[in-house]
Structure formats: C-alpha cells, structure tokens
C-alpha cells in the first residue's frame, strides 16, 4: 500500500512537469493552429540557457527561472515573426514541417557549440536531499518541481479565466470562427501567444536542468511524449493537456515500478486506447479535424 502511494506521488510529481511542458504546446496549437514540433527543442534551449547562465554569470536556479522564460519569450517572438507567420494561413502540416526543420537546426547548433556530453547543473542546496511525508520519500527537488509546476498551471489557468487577454485567447482556442465573428482581433495575439508558449517550454527546461542530463538531444523524445499528452487531452484543450499530463506521469511512474521494460511504450498504448475510444481526445472537440 505504501509502495502504491509512493508511486502515485512520484507519478503526480512527474505529471505536473509534463502538464507544465504540454501547456505551451496546447496553447500554441489552440491559438495558432500550429503543432509546434520544435517544442522539445525550445525545452532543451531552456535547460541549456540555465546551464550557461549559471556557468558564465553565476545565475542560480531562482534567477534562471525568471530570466530564461523572458529570453525564450523573445526568442519565440523572433521565430514567429521570422518563420511561422508566413505559413499560418496554409495547411497546419506545413508548420509541422517547418518546426521540424527548425528542430534539426537548433539541436545540431547546440551540439556543435556545446558538444554531445551533458552540461553540469547544480541546484541550490535548499533543494537537495529528501523529504519524508506520511511514509512517502520524495527528493526535495521533485517536491519543488511539483509545487512550482502546479503553481504555474494555476497561474496560467487564472490568466486564462480571469483576465481579458485570457478570455480572448480562450475564445480563440475554443471557438475561433465565433471569436472572429464577434470582432475579436485574434491576429494581434498570435505573436505574444507563441512567445508565451515558447517561454513555458523554456521554463520546463530550466526545471529539468537539475534532474535530467542537459544535452542537445534531451528534447527529442520528450517532445513526442508531449505530443502523446496533447493527443490524449484533446489537441485544442488546455485543461485536457494538464489532465493528460498527470495521467501520463502516473502511467509512467507505475509502469516503471511494475513493468520497467514497457514503461515508455505504455504511454503510447494509452494514447492508442484513447484514440480508439474517444478519437478527439479526452477534452477535444468532436469536430476538430485540422
């Protein structure tokens, strides 16, 4: 029983992280209709940026959590203005291919600059060690990731439901035609929303820096897990991304505990089952065919 609780807690901690990372992907898809293949590369850039900031300027994790998302926001704005905007009116597949090409370039560029071996990253001392709560042992850092991710998810949720910008973005994600018909200028929000999504990917990268190996390839398989997350949740749905993020975290944690060989595959099995039962995903719109 205790073991089950342990895995559940670990799964929720991992899930919160997936939710945070998938959030940006879901928001970008919702508003722009872009399946951002480069999300994994942006996540990797966030982690690399954190490592470089620590190495060169001595910026600790706390500062990186602030600085890197800002940098990544700027980077996202540049990418949107330079590349993505030209294809927005075409079939979404073109943007998928564009961001795929961008991924190759970014990953290879980092490989050329920083090599293939991982960059070191040391989290602040406060976050090292373990905590024990009701018989469940959790690395202190994992607890921090959990709390931080949940806080960000709640923050984004508040932003989406309580502010004017959020209403517009929500309207644009859920009923784009209606939003346009009501005279909401969705186009104005495209660039900042893309930047915001990229910033969230970068933030996830910073969070990952202390517990994952920081390499150019770190985002590759991660991105595909995030795709599975948003497909399970329903592509256009932000709530779906968060719920599915937790689901995938739990499946992974229990999979690793009871069937370690199949842990990675289980996520995709879950996705296959969801597609069979609910083709549009858990929270997806039925008619959503892009």
């Amino acid at each position: 029983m205790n073991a089950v609780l342990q895995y559940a807690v670990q799964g929720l901690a991992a899930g919160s992280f997936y939710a945070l990372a998938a959030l940006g992907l879901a928001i970008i898809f919702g508003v722009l209709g872009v399946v951002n293949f480069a999300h994994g590369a942006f996540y990797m850039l966030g982690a690399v940026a954190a490592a470089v900031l620590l190495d060169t300027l001595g910026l600790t994790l706390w500062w990186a959590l602030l600085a890197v998302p800002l940098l990544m926001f700027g980077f996202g704005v540049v990418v949107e203005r330079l590349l993505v905007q030209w294809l927005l009116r075409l079939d979404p597949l073109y943007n998928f291919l564009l961001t795929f090409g961008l991924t190759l370039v970014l990953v290879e560029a980092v490989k050329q600059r920083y090599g293939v071996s991982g960059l070191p990253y040391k989290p602040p001392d406060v976050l090292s060690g373990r905590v024990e709560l009701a018989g469940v042992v959790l690395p202190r850092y994992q607890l921090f990731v959990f709390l931080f991710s949940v806080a960000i998810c709640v923050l984004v949720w508040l932003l989406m439901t309580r502010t004017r910008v959020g209403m517009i973005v929500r309207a644009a994600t859920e009923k784009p035609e209606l939003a346009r018909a009501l005279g909401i200028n969705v186009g104005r929000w495209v660039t900042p929303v893309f930047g915001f999504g990229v910033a969230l990917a970068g933030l996830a990268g910073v969070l990952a820096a202390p517990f994952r190996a920081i390499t150019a390839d770190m985002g590759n398989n991660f991105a595909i897990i995030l795709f599975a997350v948003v497909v399970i949740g329903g592509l256009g749905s932000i709530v779906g991304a968060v719920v599915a993020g937790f689901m995938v975290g739990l499946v992974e944690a229990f999979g690793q505990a009871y069937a370690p060989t199949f842990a990675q595959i289980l996520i995709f099995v879950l996705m296959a089952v969801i597609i069979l039962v609910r083709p549009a995903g858990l929270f997806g719109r039925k008619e959503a065919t892009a």
Partner: protein
Amino acid sequence: MTRSVVTEAPVTEPQSATSAGSPRLRWVLLAVGLVAALALPWFVYPPVAMDIVAMALFAIALDILLGYTGLLSFGHAAFWGSSAYVTSLIATHHGVPFPVAVVGGALFAMILALPAGYLSVRRSGIYFAMVTLAFAQMVYFIGYQWSGLTGGENGLQGVPRNFFGIELVETDSFYFYYAALPILLLGMWVAWRIVHSPFGRVLVSIRDNTQRARALGYEVEKYKVIAFVLSAGLTGLAGGVFAINHGFVALTELHWSTSGEVVLMTVLGGIGTLWGGILGAFLSVMLADYLASSGFDGIDLVTGSVFVLVVLLFRRGLWGTVRYQWLAWQQRRTSSRRTSAGADPAERGP
C-alpha cells in the same frame, strides 16, 4: 466496396494524379530514368548509389500517402526500420538469398501497418501525423528494449548478402547494386501502378474531397488503410535492401528523424509527383554524402535549413515546380486552340 471504378480523370484537372503530358513524354522520362538507374554506380560510389535508389522507393512509398491520399505519415521509419531488422534477421539466421529475406521484411512491415493504419486513419491531417509518429515511437522503444533480438543500441551486424550462390554479389557492392536494383524498380513500378489505377483515383478523390468521396459510396477508411498497408510494404522493400546494402542495421532506422528525412525528400522533390521523390532522394543522399566526405559533421544544420527554406519558399518542390510550369504552358497552348481552358492549377497542400 460498393462502387467499382472511377474511369478517367476530368480533362480540366491536369495536375493531380496522372503524370503530365503526352504518353510519348512519359516513355522518354521512363527511358531516361532507367538509363540513369543503370548507369548510376559508374558515377557514384556503388553503396551510395544503392542508398539513393532505396531512399527513392521510400520517398515514393511515402508519397502514395502524402501526395495521393493527403495523409502525412510521420512514422514511416517504423516500417522502414522494422523491415530492415526482419530482413537482416532472416538473412542472418536462415541463409536464404537476400531477395527472399527482403520480401519477408516487406511482409512484416505490412502486417505491422495493419493495426497502425487502422488506428491512424481515424484521424486526419495533423492528428494523423502525430498518431503515426507516436506509433513509430512505440516501435522504436520495442527495438531499443528487445536487445536480445535487435542488438539494442549496437544494432545488428554482419548481415550477409547471400545471392543464389553468386559470390560476386556477396562481396562486391557494384554487383550487389545490379542484383538489388530489380527489386526496387519493381517496387517503383508497383507504386506507379497503384497511383494510376482506379484505386489510386479513389485515393486522390479522398484527398481532394473526403466528404464527397464518402457520399459517392466509397468506404474512405478502408481505402486509407489499404493505401497505408501498401505504402508500408513498399517502404519495407526499400528498408530491407538498404539493410542488406550496409550489412548492418542501426537503431537510427527506427528513429523519427528517419521519418523526417524521407518527408524532406518527398517535399523537396515535390509531393504528389513520383519522380519528385526520386529527385529528392538523389539530392539529399548526395548532399549528405558530400558533406560527410568533406568532413562537415553538422549535416542536420543543412538538412534542417533546407527543410525550412523549402517549406517557406518552395512548397511545390523541384519536380513539382517544373511540372507545374510545364502544365501551365501546355494548358495555355491548348486553351488557345480550344474555346475554354481548364481551371488554374491551384496551389495545394499535402
């Protein structure tokens, strides 16, 4: 199938499935292509030449889905790679001539494609791309984990080239090229037959207007699954030859970057044009070979940039652009003779 055949394409739709122009032009192209295929290993290092033809069939097989059915599969590495593994295992453990092993690999790819296709065609567009990608990732992990069979990260080595006891083929890549070429050309011919058959016309009609195809009584999902399985089979044929050519299989063959690579070839050449796939494969294999031999190790920087530029500026691809101009010119010519000309060949998505 409730409806049997669609006989002929409307005259005013020159650019879709049928290859352009007069039958004579088609024969000229075919002859040039055949001569080029036969002459290739004289000008290009034979193993590289073999890669070009194998990749060309891969790109063509993908285009049956992407160009002719309107489905972007981003998981074709699953069929390419799994056939490479199965072909190599058969060739290594059973000592059969390699063409037999390759056919075994292709059959395995088709069997694998049946559930994958059944699942994927439930979604279209970008969802289809993501589902195929996820499925391929599953296959990748199986290949990675099942190291007893696949050799895990080390891959399979020492795959033999047994060819009905003819030693030259087994030792010399030059002769191997000519032994394996018929398999790949046969695959290309099958692809050509598929897209130019009544079945292929139905695929195009599904691509152009799924609702209408459904309303006409076609079971769209069934057609898509069949196209998916056929495409996977041809992909498997190419993957098997590729594996035998190299004498080993690496995990890379199952990786999504391989899926991306073949999409690039198809897009670079021009989707919906079988010749484009050949051209795209030729260019990207030659480019990779040139970069590798000149000591440049950041191939993905170039590949990725080409991808971005082609998608941004050159969506018809090389062959597609040439064909588009040719058709536009022909149409202008015929329209001056006849009273009314056909529709403007509009730009179209995959």
